[in-house]
């Protein structure tokens, strides 16, 4: 069963790609971190990250966890955003057999999963090839 509080807490990141920027070294992170893993600063601010980038690598999920069954096969990939932040995300609106690393992608608001027939519906930004 999906955790409603966990989903709710993450809505800014899911809906608007809110990550964190380290005021110490300037690096950006997604999802947001409380402590910079490079310079160990705890002085980080929340920022909305760019919504365009390049697909670096990906895999195709054919045996999904519960709640994702109806969406298979789907692509989970690493997108390097324009500011260099890397985001683990789904890539949609593409032929999974023809997708290639290096594809320019743009964020799109999509349904991620639903908690059975009567539970909540979860949404988030995914990425799709730029056209």
């Amino acid at each position, binding site marked *: 069963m999906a955790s409603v509080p966990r989903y709710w807490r993450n*809505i800014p990141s899911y*809906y*608007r790609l809110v990550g964190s920027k380290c005021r110490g070294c300037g690096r950006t992170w997604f999802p947001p971190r409380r402590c910079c893993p490079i310079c160990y600063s705890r002085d980080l601010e929340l920022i*909305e990250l760019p919504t365009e980038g390049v697909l670096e690598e990906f895999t195709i999920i054919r045996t999904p966890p*519960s709640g994702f*069954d*109806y*969406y298979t096969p789907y692509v989970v990939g690493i997108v390097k955003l324009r500011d260099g932040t890397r985001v683990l995300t789904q890539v*949609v*609106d593409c032929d999974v057999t023809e997708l290639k690393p290096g594809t320019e992608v743009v964020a*799109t*608001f*999509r*349904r*991620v999963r639903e908690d059975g027939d009567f539970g909540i*519906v979860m*949404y988030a930004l*995914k990425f799709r090839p730029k*056209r």
Partner: protein
Amino acid sequence: MRTRVGVGIHGWGVYIPRYRIKVEEIARIWGYDVNYYVKSLMLKEKAVAGIDEDVATIAVEAAKNALKRASIEGSKVGAVYVGTESKPYAVKPTATIVAEAIGATPHVLAADIEFACKAGTEAFQICTGLVASGMVEYALAIGADTAQANPGDHLEFSAASGGAAYVLGPDDSRAVASIEGSVSYVTDTPDFWRRELSPYPKHAEAFTGDPAYFRHVVNAARELMSQLGLRASDFNYVVFHQPNGAFPLRAAAMLGIPKEKVLPGLLAPEIGNTYAASSLLGLAAVLDVAKPGERILVVSYGSGAGSDAISLIVKDGIEERKNLAPTVRDYVNDKTYIDYGLYARFRRIIRYVR
């Protein structure tokens, strides 16, 4: 109805899913004569929401495009109204999802509006009133649907997915179109309905024509022209609700409007009937090509039944907004055809149980 203080469109934006199914494919499955749909109803294909798309996702994408054209931040929006008959939740507003996704929360009016296919223009009128009253500076009116149709029903040939969003604000120098006036024509006419817990709507077949669509659309248009002292020839473009490609042209003929003024906003042949988004998508297609000074008539129709007729005058400054977001034509042309099997899966007509 005219507001005491001027209200205008500051931004328009649309979203049309990229999947299409041809009417030939639907006719093949159910054994219907495709010629009736192609020739009599002027339907070629319809837009189908992808497997991870619904009204919330379509509304968010359209809203973001409208905000780009308005060139304002989501936090400036004081009201979000989503007109739809395909809410993802029976109870829980779609508008809160949209408001959160565009960064308009928490000080924002937000609600879903239901009036069959008229819900989008109903939201437009509510937002017009809110802006005119000064309660909010900018309001976002959205019409979006992933229209339901019983498999095998005639509606399945047209019921489509799409959305259109409008940022309304003061009729100042940043507005791209002035709202000149509007009227509503509403009666209790049960031509089409969906009962609670029913997955698909029912309709009264031929009754949906003369006593429903044409009566409301034509009377709303005539009343608006009467109130504003205008004639049909005063409008450069006319957009009607589009249950198919043929009805809007027949309504235009009844009002003495040449079809050349209707065709720029006529999308049903290529994307189907997007229900609450239909007339607002047509208006967006017109704004994509309209020039300053031109006058546009929009007439929606929602079963149950009613029509909103709205007159707009395009203003200077529209040209530089057109390219700030994808046009209707961009979305219409970006398409991938699917067969009935994939369509059934996308629309969750077939499901599996684990």
